């Protein structure tokens, strides 16, 4: 798949110029793939592999996807596999769940997860809880996917992060990719999983290119759900994040490295079931913990991580209280200066790390 970062028209995306052409390179000139294309590839491969897989949602077919994630799929697979729905989230989510119960493998796209609130009863009550309520009789192999969290200037009703909301529910699996490899591996695993999986993508990451390792180019490349990845080894502090903030953490780590502080950056990849083992092992090594997320602080992903660390073996290894870096506890304001201060910045992460280390 050719690298198309920055050249692709993204009509419904609002991406600041700075973010559009960010590359993560290593020495070898490997394949560069955008997150968008990685998800597209993953869905394409699974649609090809299993005819029970289909995609439905608003503008996914003839418009090529509101954010162009499903570009080319309708042309390739047609009306029966790629379905444009009316603007009726509760309705089409319910239809998707029914299809999953009857044996198909739907991918239900929410244009953003903000709209999933219209359909949340279907996600939780019809999808998540059913296998339990039926004592193992009725699985619901469905994927709910779409962009989650803050974008740029889309204001209060379109910027909410749902990681904590969905992560709260037993019966659901919740994944949150950061880079292109995460996106492809996780969407494929999600589609092959027999359980309801919520995949929280990020609109601002769609256009970002990453190096695509050789194994990721395989049609059987899967990333296991429930396993975090250590993106960067370190010794002084464990920094745990999911989605776009992982990139911010790596930036912070680069800055701090110049001052002799080595951060171990963990990319959660899965919100639920959470890979607490990897976090604990890291904390037992570094003795310090900072969590980073885009969502609101109260009852968030970071809060859960801190609580679990308290309850487990890693607590005794902490030299300082764990600290959370999060979105500000306000509905997302529109004005740029307010919005900038409502999302965690690299400087906020650096500040928190230094405070934790008592520097």
């Amino acid at each position, binding site marked *: 798949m050719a690298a198309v970062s920055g050249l692709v028209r993204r*009509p419904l995306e609002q991406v600041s110029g700075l973010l559009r052409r960010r590359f993560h390179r290593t020495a070898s000139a490997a394949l560069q793939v955008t997150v968008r294309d990685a998800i597209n590839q993953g869905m394409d491969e699974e649609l090809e592999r299993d005819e029970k897989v289909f995609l439905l949602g608003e503008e996914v077919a003839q418009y090529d996807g509101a954010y162009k994630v499903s570009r080319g799929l309708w042309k390739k697979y047609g009306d029966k596999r790629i379905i444009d729905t*009316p603007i009726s989230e*509760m309705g089409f989510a319910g239809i998707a769940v029914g299809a999953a119960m009857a044996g198909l493998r739907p991918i239900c796209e929410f244009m953003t997860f903000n709209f999933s609130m219209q359909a949340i009863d279907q996600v939780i009550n019809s999808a998540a809880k059913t296998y339990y309520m039926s004592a193992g009789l009725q699985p619901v192999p469905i994927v709910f996917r779409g962009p989650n969290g803050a974008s740029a200037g889309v*204001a209060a009703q379109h910027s909410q992060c749902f990681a904590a909301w969905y992560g709260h529910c037993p019966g659901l699996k919740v994944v949150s990719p950061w880079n292109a490899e995460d996106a492809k591996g996780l969407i494929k695993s999600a589609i092959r999983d027999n359980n309801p999986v919520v995949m929280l993508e990020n609109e601002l990451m769609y256009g970002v290119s990453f190096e695509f390792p050789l194994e990721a180019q395989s049609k059987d490349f899967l990333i296991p759900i429930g396993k975090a990845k250590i993106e960067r080894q370190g010794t002084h502090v464990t920094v745990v994040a999911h989605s776009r903030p992982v990139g911010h953490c790596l930036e912070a780590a680069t800055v701090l490295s110049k001052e002799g502080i080595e951060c171990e950056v963990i990319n959660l990849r899965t919100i639920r079931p959470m890979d607490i083992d990897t976090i604990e092992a890291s904390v037992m090594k570094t003795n310090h913990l900072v969590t980073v997320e885009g969502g609101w602080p109260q009852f968030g992903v970071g809060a859960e991580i801190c609580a679990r660390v308290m309850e487990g073996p890693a607590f005794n290894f902490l030299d300082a209280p764990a600290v959370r870096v999060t979105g500000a506890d*306000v509905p997302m304001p*529109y*004005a740029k200066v307010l919005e900038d*201060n*409502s999302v965690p910045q690299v400087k*906020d992460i650096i500040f928190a790390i230094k405070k934790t280390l008592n520097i």
Partner: protein
Amino acid sequence: MRKMLAAAVSRVLSGVPQKPTSRVLVASCNYSKDVTFEIKKCDLYRLEEGPPVATVLTREDGLKYYKAMQTIRRMELKADQLYKQKFIRGFCHLCDGQEACCVGLEAGINPTDHVITSYRAHGFCYTRGLSVRSILAELTGRRGGCAKGKGGSMHMYSKNFYGGNGIVGAQGQIFEAYNMAALWKLPCIFICENNLYAMGTAIGRAAASTDYYKRGNFIPGLRVDGMDILCVREATKFAADYCRSGKGPIVMEMQTYRYHGHSMSDPGVSYRTREEIHSVRSKSDPVMLLKDRMVNNKLASIEELKEIDVEVRKEIDDAAQFATTDPEPPLEEIGHHIYSSGPPFEVRGANPWIKFKSIS
């Protein structure tokens, strides 16, 4: 020069005091005071009678409607420009082409009636009393915006106007609302601005029945020519009277068209042809239709309307100037207005050491 002289002379001779709010020259007997126009008959559902098929347009009202529609038109085009210049961010849904809907609606109701709408709200913001200045400054996210820069395009409010809402399209919810409104005979007009497309999907691909005025089932409905402001006004008056008389809710489908795409991120031509857009613009443009009516029936002169155009342009330019120079809201206010009527409290920022104050 001669024209100016003639106008000045006629002004003196007519003795009619000049209107303080506009520089429109009031001439003497060259203009009709009012004209009766025939308007399109509305399609009716579950109604024995409908709005009248003729209505009187006074010169005064005509000029008022023209100015309002032209203001909204120019304001939306200015917003388009400001968006492309990156002064406006995020989502921006423009309503140029649909001006007759909001202006006609307002002409048929009272300021004390309550209105709520979707994200394509800028026109309603204006007709519900917000100034162009406060609208544009909100779009650019400045402290002089009607929501102090905190809401943006989809979240503008004023007295008896409940926004501007970003999450729409829940078809189930509208049927729940229909049921309760009918059950309890609530005086509610349900309006569908049918511009033929649900985002990028033509209505034929999204709706099992596109006769939206009939979709209230047990609720009567009318289908209105949404490009003709007089049609909208009369239909609105009819609908409002129906509700006020205690008969319960009514559905009103306004057939209209938007020139822009769904939002500024949508070019609007991948699912529609340019020919279609051009055809609507040249045959059914609401501003043009009113203008032609007024000029052809001597309710106003072309020059007079051009003067209004100049005034409007100036108002928009001034507002845009304000909107691009007014400062952003102060950071200290980021935590304000979380709760109503409560004591101040502390709001957490991006890490535990960043704190903001929240004032009701």
